[in-house]
């Protein structure tokens, strides 16, 4: 079971995603944006960061990187793909998931331990959760406000493509409190919070009782491992 993480110029959480995959029990594979080679991986992560400095629009330039043609092909054939934060922005720019992102409504970068509700636990990346489960995943972004036209919102709500919803606080003004969405098929998921930062005791988000102890991110990776091995 091999999961690839693509490094773009300006990717920041790529090594963290590789670590999370290893902790979850799969083999992490580092991939380079400039090559047309997925090295036979079984699933893909587009990591967080500020690819190309978020110039033009967050994720816009990276979505045209050489490797993205292989990513789009693989995604359309059903390979599980997870876009985290900047990776979510790339997926949206590449039209692999619906919607778009704009500046946080508070107009600055926000970092917080964010509570989410798992709205759909049937995607490739969410089967280890229960529907309606409340989870705690670190959030950190400047351009995290999810937007879409009213028809799109209605459609993805009706289709069950809203995968995660912000709970308690909507940190960036996202439409319908949407934190993460999937494609229709459910193999491609994008979300703003960072599951790769909630996988290791001592380095995750604070929970209600203990410092840096949140591990809810691990289920993203164990879900996809189960899906691929099934």
């Amino acid at each position, binding site marked *: 079971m091999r999961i690839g993480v693509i490094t773009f110029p*300006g990717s*920041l959480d790529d090594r963290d995603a590789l*670590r999370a995959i290893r902790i979850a029990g799969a083999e992490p594979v580092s991939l380079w944006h400039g090559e047309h080679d997925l090295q036979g991986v079984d699933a893909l992560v587009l990591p967080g960061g500020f690819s190309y400095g978020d110039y033009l629009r967050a994720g816009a330039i990276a979505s045209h990187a050489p490797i993205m043609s292989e990513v789009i092909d693989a995604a359309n054939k059903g390979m599980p793909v997870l876009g985290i934060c900047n990776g979510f922005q790339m997926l949206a720019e590449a039209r692999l998931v619906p919607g778009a992102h704009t500046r946080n409504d508070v107009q600055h970068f*926000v970092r917080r331990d964010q509570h989410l509700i798992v709205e759909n636990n049937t995607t490739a990346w969410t089967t280890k959760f229960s529907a309606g489960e409340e989870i705690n995943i670190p959030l*950190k972004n400047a351009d995290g406000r999810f937007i879409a036209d009213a028809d799109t919102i209605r459609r993805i709500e009706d289709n069950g493509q809203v995968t995660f919803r912000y709970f308690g606080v909507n940190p960036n003004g996202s439409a319908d409190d949407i934190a993460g969405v999937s494609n229709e098929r459910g193999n491609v998921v994008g979300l703003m919070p960072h599951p790769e930062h909630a996988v290791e005791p*001592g*380095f995750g988000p604070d929970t209600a009782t*203990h*410092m840096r102890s949140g591990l809810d991110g691990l289920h993203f990776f164990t879900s996809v491992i189960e899906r691929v091995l099934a």
Partner: protein
Amino acid sequence: MSADTVENAIATPDKEQPYAALGLKPDEYARIKEILGRRPTSGELAMYSVMWSEHCSYKSSKMYLRQFGQKVTPKMRERLMVGMGENAGVIDIGEGWAVTFKVESHNHPSYIEPFQGAATGVGGIVRDIISMGARPVAIMDQLRFGAVENADTARVVAGVVGGISFYGNCLGLPNIGGETYFDAVYQGNPLVNALAVGVLRHEDLHLANASGVGNKIVLFGARTGGDGIGGASILASDSFDSTGPTKRPAVQVGDPFAEKVLIECCLELYRGGLVEGIQDLGAAGISCATSELAANGDGGMFVELDNVLLRDPTLTSEEILMSESQERMMAVVEPGKLEAFLAVTAKWDVETSVLGEVTDTGRLVIHHNGHEIVNVDPSTVAVDGPVYERPVAYPTWIDALNADSASVLARPTDGPTLREQFLSLVASPNLADKSMITTQYDYFVMGNTALSFPDDAGMIRVDEESGLGFSVATDCNGRYCQLDPYQGAQLALAEAYRNVSVTGAVPAAVTDCLNFGSPENPEVMWQFQRAVEGLSDACQAMEIPVTGGNVSFYNQTGDVAIHPTPVVGVLGIIDDVARRIPSAWQEEGHNIYLLGVTSVELDGSAWANTIHNHLGGRPPAVDLEREVALGSLLHGAALEGLVTSAHDLSDGGLAQALAEAVSRFGVGARVYLDEILERDGVDAATALFSESTGRVIVSVDRTDDVKFVGLCEARGYPVLRIGVTDQRGAEAELDVQGLFRIPVTEIAHRSAETLPKYFG
């Protein structure tokens, strides 16, 4: 455009030159002529003027800074791999790992243009770290702003915090702590200091020197533009016969994306063994990099300025030499490795040009447009600058200030007033919750942050297998330093040392950023002299070396200088970050102990400031031997896992430490002061608000009580049980028995509402 050539300088010895406008004194200009045996070319004059500036040459501070190198013990050298004088100091932390760290100022640019000033402050210090061969792994900022209620403060706060957030987050470096203070003395001179830490394997250490005749001098990174040229308006004036653009901005503009790519590119170059020497381009740009590399190496260098890639083709040679465009590095590369070097920079889309090579002439020679425009001995530019022994005068006002003690101010004895003062302190701008700022910083990135704000120190895991890591804290109480700069500097060190110790780490090295007023004011020079003496004496007493730092003078508006603000950073080593100690308790029913003794030490305190708007008297006594003993005791307790939290007592004393310990995780406490009052002979207000040093509160699981108290007694360190942690949740409260009770939610609320009220 006609550049001023060496030939021309010889032919026109009497040409008027704008040395004064460039900041050089008549005798400095005369010395340059004496060194060269002729007048300098305009390019040489530009180089000397920036390299002999206070910022680059340390000409007013050098004679004092030598003490840091002189007052050393063998123990202080044990871990030291690179000491002061390089881009940043390096210490051995074991297991083949080393850590490099340094704090630097970016004060003046941050007042003029807070966003870019603060952003490029981060960028600059991070490049110093990369230059040592290290991967940057953490940043911290030490910020001092004007009074909260002054309308201009909001402009500076928003800009500075936005700039740090923008640059640091985009660079992918966890921001793990820092300081934020407000005081009217910083109104016209806010302080923006930036600290960065990097890690490297011993064999990856790189130094800034150009050795090996024939090796190539390579400039890579961002293109050179007109930004950040100090005194640009002067340069672009008629005196330089320039036809180029005028009035260039003096504040640099940062591009964190370019810097992130530069970090990864440099690390790949190091891994490939493709770099012989490396230097970042900061203050004084190419002038500094070429002269320092050459002076530290074999002494000779030839550079073709035409090969510098420009953002603006109309730049004059003087402007190219002085430009402080960000995100640039200069490397020394063996000719046989040049191709491989260029392949790596091409992979990262980093623009690169070969400027010249190392020579054995002992001269730094620079050509532009086919003319020789610079021909100097590089050490006269970079090393042998002027050194001044500035006049020093004991301040006329300080005796009266010292005589005005806070000990005579009214201290309440009744519960309701103590409660009210407790909450006033909690809500005061300097002690209030700084989440409004810190939630704009990413501490998760890289996945190794074991502790960060609001813990007393930040902590980073270095080795994922063994858990080896470091802890770092910075401190400085400018009010103490105003009362006594010698003792104030020692208190800064003692507090940073304690803040590292409470995490369970062992302090190992010091960096400092010495922020002062004008060195031309003899009373400021006295403050500086005393602070350096105090800090160097204290480092020797605690046996912990200063590995590098920075001096920032001229932090004054008109005749009014800032409080002396020698920011001290301490870095400690922890064998396994899994044994780290947080600063707040998370469990009910743990005993709370106070280590250390309390006396009436309210001079310069947060209580005197907040309640009485008073500054006077003498700062708290500092006992360095006792601080070392306390650090050792805490390390012992951490190794045995005896304490579940430990929190330093400093600004706001026991009151503030308790407020932070209960509000962090919402776990309340019942506290009794009686035994403190009895043993130390003090009143309740003193017990709560005094800022006596050498004190820490810890929480201990009851099963470890006997062992913990035994440890303290064996070490002879004063210890008193002062309470027990209580329930968590909505009902949680801080009960200072017999005096007052406050719901934890009220404490947290009062603390959290202050900053948003002014800056939200």
